[in-house]
């Protein structure tokens, strides 16, 4: 069974910008495209990414290309009533992050890839679905001995 990673919204934004430090996100999606990994996002992330792209001046054609490319390789799930309930009851802060995290957990993801320092800190001791940066995940994919 393939390892399943959840891509937080900031990872989708990574993929679509040319800002520095996004190589690891591109490596992860390339591995997903090769079917060496399975990936999951939520509709919320897709819609937010498209909204940011549009407001930043990306053309409709380019946005469609981006979303279509992600859609081809990545499972797109939704945030359901149970995720919302958990997020509301979760004592650890950001409601949206909590809902995303629970949606990832409900989709049986092994890792939650994010750059969000709040999520990274709060799941430090998680035993099932740890939140890590794409760089840390990429390091773990490097051949041993390197």
């Amino acid at each position, binding site marked *: 069974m393939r390892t399943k990673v959840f891509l937080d919204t*900031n990872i989708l934004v990574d993929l679509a910008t040319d800002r520095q430090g996004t190589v690891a996100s591109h490596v992860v999606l*390339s591995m997903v495209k090769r079917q060496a990994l399975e990936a999951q996002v939520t509709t919320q992330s897709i819609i937010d990414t498209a909204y940011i792209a549009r407001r930043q001046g990306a053309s409709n054609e380019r946005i469609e290309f981006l979303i279509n490319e992600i859609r081809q390789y990545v499972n797109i799930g939704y945030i359901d009533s149970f995720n919302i309930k958990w997020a509301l009851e979760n004592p650890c802060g950001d409601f949206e992050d909590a809902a995303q995290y629970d949606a990832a957990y409900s989709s049986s993801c092994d890792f939650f890839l994010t750059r969000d320092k709040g999520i990274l800190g709060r799941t430090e001791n998680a035993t099932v679905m740890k939140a890590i940066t794409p760089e840390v995940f990429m390091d773990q994919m490097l051949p041993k001995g390197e």
Partner: protein
Amino acid sequence: METITVERNTATRKAKPHKKAVETKKAPEKVQTVLRISPELMRRVKYKARQVDVSVNAYIEDVLRDAVMPRIPTLPEDFEIDPVIKSLSGIIPMRTPTQKELEEDPKFAYLYEKYLKV
């Protein structure tokens, strides 16, 4: 059938263990659980544990951990970022929106602040 008791990490048997981890940061403890397995399998487990010089408990714990831990793939030696994936870079232009833009669209202001602002 033979009954054995195995210790395991408490966190792994919670319905949603990540939530426990979110709430507390204390070291994981061990719990006891009972398995029902065939005498033949138990004999093999004991034999394998003896071979590697560990207790039956430690051996079973190792085997279970190995079975449930995600296997992260290794990057192939000839790995390169997929050219189509690479071409996604730059679809979202990195520009700083004007104050007026942010004030007129609070949703965008929030998303920009959260996901794009360097």
